């Protein structure tokens, strides 16, 4: 492993009296696929929410690309290179596939209001330049046939793919995927796995993903973090984690 991209250091997150995450530390290396697994309610999604700034942990720090911080707004996280998909697809459902992915390019667009008003010169050139990028992503994800369709009406598997496309449009350094394969059939899962691997290999994007399907995790992930009841109970190579007694207990529901 080469270089550290993200370091989560002793993070604790509480909601009122409830502790969602307790003193968790782990790192993500540049270029790897890092899986975060654990039973329901283990705090996986909360962990992602902390990383991209939705939740602000009470204790601990997060270091991303060498910069340490505790509080950050989601749009600042986006600007610094963190993109994300959601467990329950969070697309802009009234907008088309094209516009959804285009929305991921928002940060790359900065033409002024006046030129927007007249849709002339720089503003139009910018739209066209970004459109090209978006078309590359559409091509990459093999979804040209749904380019103009409102995403709300697409089948679930395709919505997930569009959401991945939207995240890719940010050209992120770190891509957080919250159960990218939830609710998919076998074929869709295979497709999605292929896309995730391709993203990782072709663009060198670092990926952190939450996934329930252990088979998928073992296939995709370079390293795995295991959470249970907000605590870290395992961290290592997929095979190591799979053999770890604490992890097995957590999954089989041995009482604590």
């Amino acid at each position, binding site marked *: 492993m080469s270089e550290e991209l993200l370091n989560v250091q002793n993070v604790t997150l509480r909601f009122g009296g409830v502790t969602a995450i307790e003193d968790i530390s782990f790192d993500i290396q540049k270029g790897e696929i890092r899986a975060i697994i654990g039973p329901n309610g283990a705090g996986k999604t909360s962990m992602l929410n902390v990383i991209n700034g939705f939740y602000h942990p009470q204790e601990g720090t997060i270091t991303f690309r060498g910069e340490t911080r505790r509080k950050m707004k989601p749009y600042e996280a986006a600007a610094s290179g963190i993109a994300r998909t959601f467990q329950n697809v969070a697309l802009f459902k009234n907008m088309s596939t*094209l516009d959804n992915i285009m929305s991921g390019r928002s940060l790359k667009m900065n033409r002024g209001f006046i030129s927007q008003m007249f849709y002339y010169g720089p503003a139009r050139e910018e739209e066209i330049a970004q*459109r*090209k990028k978006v*078309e*590359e992503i*559409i*091509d*990459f994800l093999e979804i*040209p*046939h749904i*380019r103009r369709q409102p995403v709300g009406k697409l089948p679930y598997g395709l919505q997930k793919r569009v959401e991945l496309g939207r995240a890719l449009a940010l050209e992120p350094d770190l891509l957080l995927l919250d159960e990218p394969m939830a609710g998919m059939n076998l074929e869709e899962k295979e497709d999605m796995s292929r896309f995730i691997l*391709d993203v990782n*290999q*072709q663009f060198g994007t670092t990926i952190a993903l939450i996934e329930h399907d252990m088979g998928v995790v073992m296939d995709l992930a370079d390293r795995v973090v295991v959470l249970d009841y907000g605590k870290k109970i395992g961290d290592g190579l997929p095979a190591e984690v799979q053999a770890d007694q604490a992890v097995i207990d957590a999954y089989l529901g041995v009482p604590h």
Partner: protein
Amino acid sequence: MTTTSDLDTFPKYLLRNAKTFAERPAMRHKDMGIWQTWTWSQMLDEVRDYSLGLQAIGMKRGDKVAVVGENRPVLYWTFLAVQALGGVPIPIYADSVADEMAYVLDHAEVRFAVVQDQEQVDKVLSIKDRLPSLETIVYDWERGLGDYDEPFLHHYKDLQEKGSALLPGAEQGWMDGIAKSKGEDLAVMLYTSGTTGKPKGVMLSYDNLVISAKNANTFDNFDETDEIIAYLPLAWVGDHIFSYAQSLTAGYCVCCPESVGTVTENRREIAPTYFFAPPRVFEGLLTDIMVRMEDASALKQKMFHYFLGVASKTGEKILNGESVGLMDRLLYKLGDVLVYGPLKNRLGMTRMKVGYTAGEAIGPEIFRFYRSLGLNLKQLYGQTEACVYITAQPDGEISADTVGTPSPDVEIDIADNGEVLYRSPGVFMGYYKNDDATRETKTKEGWVHTGDAGFIDGDGHLRIIDRAKDVGKLNDGSMFPPKYIENKLKFFPNIKEAVAIGDERDFAAVMLNIDLQSVANWAERNNIVYGSYQELAQHPLVIAMMAEHVDQVNRDLSEEERVAGAQIHRFLVLHKELDADDGELTRTMKVRRSLINERYEPLIEALYDGSTEKFVETEVTFEDGRKGTIKATVKIEDSKVYGREAVREAAE
């Protein structure tokens, strides 16, 4: 400076077009959401750079180059780039499985393979060990190929860069190379899939292709303003003529669809002025139209069918320039606003100047339907060995059951056994490394055996009955033309495929394939529940429907003296679709009779032993090459015969 008389190869045409039609579109490709367009001069740049790149990695005069993939600009450019270097491109069906491909690549001794994408790269890599001559693979679409590190694998863009780095110094040498090729040189090799045996490599010279293409352009008045959509397999001679030879000689624009699945949509966008499709495509479109209209409101359906009625009464007459009453003409105009125009618009045929169909007989109803809409749909008769054109219907002399008069420069002769022979400038040079076959097909005088039985009718039009060798005899001596019967059946939208049996047997019988789209739709409307293709095919109501169709065919047959004896006595509905992957159909979707006779022998026996049903197991091949079996009990039905039979019974 090249003059017209020097225009005897395609690279030379490219140079001319880049000058004459410099800013006119040469090629379009729906890619990244829009129709990326290259003018002739831009295309010349692309081809030149690419060609120089190929040269830089070692391509020489006479090299054979396999071209595998769908209709994408780069693959058409490959033809030009290779021909410019004096090489010979060999387009190969993109959907051929590794073994089929290995045979052709080996037989043709290809040194280079230019392929579309990762899938094809993988396929070629899997057989590379068996191909000692294959040295280099070039690919068009780089997706997924990032971590392939084989040294002999190149992206065409890299080659273009290599080539353009050599400019301007290398340009003259490249031009000289083009000038070196002559009309009589081998231009391309097309492997015909053939209904039997291994594919044969048809060698076509530049003269064959260029003259045929020019004649065709003149015949139908094509020029640089026309547009065509390229969607048929590259390896098929039709595509090579329409989308390559004719485009270069006329200077018209070739549009490549975004993907195989979006052809219909892309055609609608482009609205080509020249459109070729085998009958099954026209059939499919018509079925689709009728199926969709069934969901329309009652009023709209009424209007639709009323105006189709008007069209079938007057449409063809108007198209043929015959006199039509004012009232009818006005009604037709109204129909054009309300139905025909929008329909043509939805089909993407608004701008269609000429449409051709060939390869199989087209259902007269289907043919007339399109003609009645005001579409100039015509039939032609052709072969790979003839560079397509043998006969074609001239404007105004159209009928559903002829294939037209001899094309320009083509001579036709009918042999004693009824076989059609032809001689033309388009006649091929020979089969590659197969002189026996060449001699069998092509006489010393240059006449080519088509293998089809036919005759010239009173108007000088050729009529085709069947494959000469397929026309058989029933035991009672009556004529048995299987394809004739099959075509009559296939004209019903609910029947996708039919296989007639009867040669040297007591009576004719057929095996049918339902058309899933059409029958499933019908089932949905009639609340018929089914779990699988098999179940639907064997559903009593479906069989009853098929029985009606068979009955209708028998009535038709009974009216024609020569074929009345070939009426269908028994039939069955097959439990699986005939499939090219199982070898039951050719890649051009023609029935492979001998193979089917073998595979379905138990069923055929059952047709003749009087049983009412039969349990069978059939082996199938899945797309990825795995094999499995389907088990089913197939019902066998009797059907009524008319005319002669009835008369004979009465006499007894």
